[in-house]
């Protein structure tokens, strides 16, 4: 399998990588062999040597999505009364929609790049005629809100206190998540990976959770197990009592700040 020669840097994101794998294997988009594509996808991720964490989070999120779809595909859809659920949507449906949608904009990007571009394919006059260069005041030059914000931002950098209350980007940190996972694991034999998420969890939290999980594995505080049959991920505590560590995980040293 030459998927090992694939470099993540060549892809703008997990959807791009998936599109590539699907095309390379000449798979049918409406009937993606999910087990096979998941295996190939994970193989690519595994062979990544240098991990740009910012990007990796999203590639890992897709890995989790694929594993989740895979497990749902294997699980027979049983309704309450025991009958086969017929209206159940194909677990792959959303992924297929996203891939097709992404492909549309990927194509649009190519088309955009093919348009004759100013200062690449054609040139306008750089300076107005001397007669025109004359200080005068007419309409306002187009200035965006961005310019306004940037001016304000610059002021904040120089004098942070007065307007600082406007910035309150309170988001879940990796260190917080590590503590939460360790707390959840306390006294447990194992914990399903999917149980770490609530239904309304944000994308940011998913990524943070993934990073937290990776960190816990690296710190040898948690083992990850994948059940043969359903492919779901289970977390098991590697040590009986993860004492002390849940309180003083230093974000700086983790490098996720």
């Amino acid at each position: 399998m030459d998927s090992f020669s694939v470099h993540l840097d060549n892809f703008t994101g997990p959807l791009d990588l998936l599109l590539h794998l699907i095309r390379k294997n000449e798979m049918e988009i409406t009937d993606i062999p999910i087990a096979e594509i998941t295996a190939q996808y994970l193989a690519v991720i595994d062979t990544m040597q240098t991990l740009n964490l910012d990007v990796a989070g999203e590639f890992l999120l897709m890995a989790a999505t694929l594993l989740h779809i895979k497990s749902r595909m294997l699980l027979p859809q049983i309704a309450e009364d025991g009958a086969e659920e017929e209206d159940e949507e194909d677990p792959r449906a959303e992924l297929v929609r996203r891939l097709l949608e992404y492909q549309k904009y990927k194509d649009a990007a190519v088309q955009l790049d093919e348009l004759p571009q100013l200062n690449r394919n054609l040139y306008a006059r750089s300076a107005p005629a001397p007669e025109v260069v004359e200080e005068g005041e007419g309409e306002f030059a187009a200035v965006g809100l961005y310019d306004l914000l940037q001016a304000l931002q610059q002021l904040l950098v120089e004098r942070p206190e007065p307007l600082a209350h406007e910035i309150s980007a309170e988001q879940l940190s990796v260190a917080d998540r590590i503590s939460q996972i360790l707390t959840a694991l306390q006294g447990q034999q194992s914990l399903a990976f999917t149980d770490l998420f609530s239904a309304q969890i944000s994308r940011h939290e998913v990524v943070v959770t993934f990073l937290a999980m990776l960190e816990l594995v690296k710190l040898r505080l948690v083992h990850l197990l994948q059940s043969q049959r359903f492919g779901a991920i289970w977390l098991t505590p590697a040590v009986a009592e993860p004492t002390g560590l849940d309180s003083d995980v230093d974000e700086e040293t983790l490098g996720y700040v």
Partner: protein
Amino acid sequence: MSDLKPLVEALLFGADGPLRGDRLAEVLEVEGVVVNEVLRALQTEYETQPRGFFLQEVAGGYQLRTRPEFADYLRRLGRTRPFKFSRPALETLAIVAYRQPVTRTEIEYLRGVDSGSVLKTLLDKHLVRILGKKDVPGKPAIYGTTREFLELFGLVDLAALPTLKEFSELATDADMDESAAVLPREVSGD
């Protein structure tokens, strides 16, 4: 009418950006229809005569620009360096262009990756702007393209964007070559 042609040419030549038809009419103190006639006549002239430039309708106005076939030589002059778009930048720009007004969250859902830094660069380059806030919880900023975006890609308006292809299946690699088509052209003067 015919005696207006050199004058309109001079104005187009001397302007520092695309000139709107109504602005030309104002400066010349003539009716808009007269201006349009002259502009059409000039357009035809530049197409039929062997000229170095042509009249492009762009960003709601008209601008003289050098013919694309001379691009290699103009690059050698080394005057203005072209933007070299990365693939993430082009993807993000395409999404903003076609989906505007669009939030960062929507862009990131479509691309599957964080797009904050790409978005910031596009804002810095004045190709994307903040239009305002979306009236949903959290009031996220909504983004759209700028006049400079239209000027850069030589578009009259947003309706002139290439038609989006709807895909019902995956394109083959031949239809849409991953890298070759998307990578910016090499622009160095060698």
